């Protein structure tokens, strides 16, 4: 056991060296790991979605493939791979192919600035080994906002390149929806950034340390951000881009085989990333209030990191369950209702939230509390 631990320590120590080669190898390794984790989580989510929806409708859900139907996603992927890959005659072939790739790539690449756990000390010099792909980006939050905006391209291009009016409608709806909700999403965020005083994900998390989570100080901001991320991920009740009773399948009407599979996967990957971002911003990230005081764990130890991973994933999965739960409870919004909510309710509320947060912070500073 000791020799294994020593080898792992030596490998991590080598990887943590600040050389170009080591950083390159480490980033590729972490990237591959993140990719695999998100794909497994997405597959699990597909299973969870079907199970939860079944339970909410007095059904059983998938229960034939593997124990509790757990291998169902695997069977689904096999099916998608063996299906014929059709692209319409009049489609723009290049963009038709590119759109699902953009969707899934954006959904996954957001995760590189998300921090599931801090670091452990490795080697004799106590070098810090970080667990996120890009651990110390000082504009982390901006990267996330920028990448989510690019995510619209995948859906819009898919709708446009299919050369089908239903697809185009879906694509246009989605771009309109995502742009109008991005606004209130960004504004709802500002309250959090004011409290943290930084765009760095590390600072945002440490500002919430020991149970001082932003959800308690920014409940309105949390609700607005939550609703906006439902709209951003095109999930019910905001799934107008793919509204099947009106638009057949929206932007992915003309997709089949694994290209459709990528869109399907991107939806769940997007859910996972939104949950991770929500956790970081409002639920204190990896912060477990009891870890330091009750268990006496120190920063940089392996046990601490494991506790952090556990808390982070527990929070993320609670949010993911909430995403699924809401989908099977609420009916879809009408298009004008969606725009009304976005522009007439959420936008003024998020502006008011900034004003109130600023005012309260100013008052607290005046009395010397903050």
């Amino acid at each position, binding site marked *: 056991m000791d020799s294994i631990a020593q080898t792992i320590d030596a490998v991590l120590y080598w990887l943590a060296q600040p050389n170009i080669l080591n950083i390159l190898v480490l980033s590729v390794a972490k990237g591959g790991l993140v990719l695999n984790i998100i794909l497994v989580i997405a597959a699990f989510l597909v299973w969870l979605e079907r199970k*939860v929806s079944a*339970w*909410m*409708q*007095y059904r059983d859900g998938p229960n034939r493939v593997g124990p509790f139907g757990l291998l169902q996603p695997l069977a689904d992927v096999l099916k998608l791979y063996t299906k014929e890959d059709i692209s319409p005659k009049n489609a723009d072939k290049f963009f038709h192919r590119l759109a699902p790739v953009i969707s899934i790539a954006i959904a996954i690449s957001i995760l590189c600035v998300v921090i599931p756990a801090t670091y452990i000390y490795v080697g004799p010099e106590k070098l810090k080994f970080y667990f996120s792909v890009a651990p110390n980006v000082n504009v982390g939050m901006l990267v996330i906002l920028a990448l989510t905006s690019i995510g619209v391209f995948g859906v819009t291009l898919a709708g446009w390149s299919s050369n089908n009016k239903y697809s185009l409608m879906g694509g246009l709806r989605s771009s309109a929806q995502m742009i109008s909700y991005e606004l209130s999403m960004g504004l709802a965020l500002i309250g959090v950034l004011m409290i943290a005083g930084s765009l760095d994900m590390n600072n945002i998390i440490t500002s919430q340390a020991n149970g001082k989570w932003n959800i308690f100080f920014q409940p309105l901001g949390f*609700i607005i951000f939550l609703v906006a991320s439902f709209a951003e991920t095109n999930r019910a009740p905001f799934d107008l881009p793919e509204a099947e009773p009106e638009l057949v399948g929206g932007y992915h009407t003309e997709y089949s085989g694994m290209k459709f599979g990528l869109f399907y996967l991107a939806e769940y990957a997007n859910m996972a990333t939104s949950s991770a971002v929500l956790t970081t911003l409002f639920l204190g990230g990896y912060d477990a209030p009891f870890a330091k005081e009750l268990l006496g764990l120190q920063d940089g130890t392996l046990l601490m990191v494991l506790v952090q991973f556990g808390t982070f994933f527990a929070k993320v999965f609670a949010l993911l369950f909430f995403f699924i*739960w809401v989908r099977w*409870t*609420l009916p879809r919004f009408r298009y004008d209702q969606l725009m009304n909510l976005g522009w007439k309710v959420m936008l003024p509320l998020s502006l008011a939230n900034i004003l109130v947060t600023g005012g309260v912070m100013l008052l607290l500073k005046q009395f010397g509390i903050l």
Partner: protein
Amino acid sequence: MNVTTNTAAQRLTFWEKLYLPEIVKGLVSTLKTMAKPSMTRRYPEERWEPLGSYRGRPVLVQEESGERCVACGLCSRVCPALAIEVRAAETMERDKERYPDLFEINMLRCIYCGFCEEVCPEEAIVMSKDYDIVFHSQEAAIFGKDQLLTPVARLQERLEFLRQYK
């Protein structure tokens, strides 16, 4: 004329306009449903037993002495889907002189209307309780006498139903 009524009772209250409390109510309702047992019947393991009134696959009644059918061909004549084919033959061995030497029902054509059963003077063809009828080819869908003949003991419930309501 476009008449719209908007009485105080129809107007939403403040809390209803706020959406959020109503959403929470809905969420609680679905969460409660999650804890309740499912209504799914796990089909191949757990089968549904139909009542006597159920119109499943039509079968020929077989008694100890032999089949009841006298090959009159009425069922074949009445069948709206032209699914039944009967070829009569004669015999001296039994009290009934006619019997079907070929009796075929094409199960791809059968619409389970039950006219054959209604028209049969001998109560020789009745609807059974079989509802999972599967085959791999069109040829296999044509059921011959070997598949149609069913002992009378297994059809008691249907025969009693017919005596009561037909």
